[in-house]
């Protein structure tokens, strides 16, 4: 989330042995086998698109974080760990956990309880058709595009480090994902996300342990990071998460605490974890309301520990790189003399993993890439089939017809992903531009969900035009601001008139989100008050907080596993981590 990977063409080169190929082959066989076994369970559209709403909370929880744990996340966070140090943990402890608790405790009752089949469908029930279609269209484009980016990143990385054929990587990865989603639908995607989760955990843990041993343990790591921080002119900044957030110029992220908390911790984080159907779909596959609510809360527990697996490798790599000598790591260096942070994970794999474990590490990476693709494609086929095809083309479609459309959409989605992957290879700026446009559309989104769920007076017109106002606010904000050291352009900003310069592009991004959210919130509020309500109280029952019976926790669930208790435990643990690594 929030990170974009651009692996280089040159860099670390790995050579595989037969045992590594055997491990990779075995993984592919199991992935396809799971799809094959699950195919006979796909009897209704609910089975195919929603896993029959039958999965236990722990599987949905691992799918919930697995769908977000694409290889771009794994490699991007390792790169950020090297670039920003422990402060990268803000993307987890500020930019994920609080939102995951919020969606589990407060929002899931509306998503799951309303019986909506998708997030856009919830918007239809709560607001109106135009708000749903706007969200469905932007989401559908974004998911196939993201899937294409995963495909491109996988092919480019394998081409760079293993010398494999780019076209072959696109074809094979696309075909494998196609077969297992086509056969087993959402269940197949979630099961593979669970597999990938354990592969990442068990495959990356030895990498971290070996790196720590090599650098001289935690103390050795801190000592080397402090020395590196001093060399970069920001003493201590790589080994503290909050201590240097008082001033944007004192930390490598280039943002101050307010922009971080409000922009990342509130707008972007809540906008992603609470409204993005890619992750919400995993919770909606749960077997009952209690499990659906517990899904993001259970997921939050491993999520808060993930910095140890995905950020620590980056910190280790930069510390080893700085230390040099026998512990040195072969990070490729760019023309400007700075190391290529995106190659941190392959460089560590090459340094610490002999054949055998190397196969496991690569399998875990490939599983992450394919999970990222599959997660996006399953969300795409559901939104296309339910929210666009069934609504606009065939409202009376039979259940069997919907499954056929879902399968055909899977094929089409992967074909579009492949086109996006080739477009990314040829026109990198177009991809950056598309990402920027999606940023404009997504930044204000959480405002209409917040108002829709907790303010019964919010209207359909208010939500739709509020969303447009929020998007336009984001565009105008980007046109009036520029990150330090960048020149005015459509991509970087300042094309209207440079009114403010930010220390980093991340700071510009976080503040753009704050402005877009505020614009959307105020726009929705004012337009809602100026327009007549389009839903009666009876229609809003189950969709709005004040009109919905409060969900009571199951008495059969032990006290410590109930959503409210879990939420408190998760928040206390997260607070503890922030204090420990202050």
């Amino acid at each position, binding site marked *: 989330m929030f990170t974009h990977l651009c692996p280089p063409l040159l860099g670390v080169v790995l050579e595989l042995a037969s045992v590594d190929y055997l*491990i990779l082959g075995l993984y592919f066989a199991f992935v396809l086998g799971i799809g094959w*076994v*699950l195919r006979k*369970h796909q009897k209704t559209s609910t089975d195919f698109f929603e896993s029959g709403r039958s*999965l236990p909370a722990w599987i949905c929880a691992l799918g919930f974080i697995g769908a977000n744990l694409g290889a771009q996340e794994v490699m991007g966070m390792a790169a950020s760990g090297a670039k920003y140090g422990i402060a990268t943990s803000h993307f987890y402890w500020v930019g994920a956990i609080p939102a995951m608790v919020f969606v589990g405790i407060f929002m899931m009752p509306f998503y799951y309880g309303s019986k909506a089949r998708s997030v856009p469908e919830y918007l239809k029930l709560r607001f109106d058709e135009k708000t749903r279609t706007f969200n469905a269209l932007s989401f559908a484009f974004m998911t196939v595009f993201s899937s294409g980016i995963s495909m491109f990143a996988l092919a480019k990385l394998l081409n760079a480090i293993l010398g494999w054929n780019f076209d072959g990587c696109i074809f094979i990865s696309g075909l494998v994902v196609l077969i297992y989603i086509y056969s087993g639908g959402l269940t197949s995607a979630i099961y593979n996300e669970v597999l990938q989760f354990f592969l990442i955990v*068990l495959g990356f843990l030895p990498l971290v342990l070996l790196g720590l041993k090599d650098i001289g343990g935690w103390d050795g790591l801190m000592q080397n990071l402090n020395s590196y921080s001093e060399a970069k002119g920001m003493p201590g900044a790589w080994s503290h998460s909050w201590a240097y957030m008082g001033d944007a110029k004192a930390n490598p992220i280039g943002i101050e605490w307010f922009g971080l908390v409000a922009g990342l911790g509130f707008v972007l984080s809540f906008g992603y974890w609470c409204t993005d159907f890619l992750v919400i779909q995993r919770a909606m596959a749960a077997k009952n309301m209690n499990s659906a609510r517990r899904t993001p809360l259970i997921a939050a527990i491993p999520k808060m520990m993930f910095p140890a697996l995905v950020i620590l490798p980056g910190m280790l790599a930069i510390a080893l790189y700085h230390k040099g000598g026998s512990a040195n790591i072969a990070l490729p260096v760019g023309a400007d003399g700075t190391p290529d942070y995106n190659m941190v994970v392959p460089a560590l794999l090459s*340094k610490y*993993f002999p*054949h055998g*474990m190397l196969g496991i590490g690569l399998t875990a990476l490939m599983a992450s890439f394919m999970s990222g693709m599959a997660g996006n494609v399953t969300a795409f086929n559901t939104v296309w089939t339910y929210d666009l095809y069934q609504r606009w083309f065939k409202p009376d479609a039979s259940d069997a017809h919907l499954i056929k459309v879902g399968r055909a959409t899977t094929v089409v989605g992967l074909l579009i992903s492949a086109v996006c992957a080739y477009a990314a290879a040829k026109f990198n700026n177009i991809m950056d531009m598309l990402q920027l446009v999606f940023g404009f559309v997504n930044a204000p989104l959480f405002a209409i969900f917040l108002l829709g769920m907790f303010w019964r007076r919010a209207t359909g017109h208010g939500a739709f035009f509020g969303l447009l106002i929020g998007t336009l606010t984001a565009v105008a904000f980007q046109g009036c601001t520029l990150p330090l050291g960048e020149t005015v352009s459509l991509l970087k900003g300042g094309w209207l008139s440079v009114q403010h310069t930010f220390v980093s592009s991340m700071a510009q991004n976080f503040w753009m989100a704050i402005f877009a959210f505020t614009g959307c919130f105020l726009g929705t509020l004012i337009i809602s008050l100026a327009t007549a309500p389009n839903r009666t109280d009876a229609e809003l029952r189950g969709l709005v907080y004040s009109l919905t019976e409060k969900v009571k926790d199951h008495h059969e669930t032990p006290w410590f596993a109930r959503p409210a208790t879990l939420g408190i435990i998760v928040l206390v643990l997260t607070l503890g981590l922030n204090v420990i690594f202050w």
Partner: protein
Amino acid sequence: MNQLDVRLPMGLLFLILGLILVGYGLTADPAIYASHSLGQNVNVTWGAIFVLFGAAMLTLAAKAKKTTPRD
């Protein structure tokens, strides 16, 4: 909907991967560990952990099958 228990394929996969790692770790040239994993035979160590994890998953799947009534 009577789904496949995910612990079954997962347990099997990790069990087989673990056995492959242990087998390879015991038979491969020890020199590969000196040049990579700080002299430690990580294939045997982590292979054993994979085997234990796989076996635990299979045991849990078998237990769940016993306690779940058949359709």
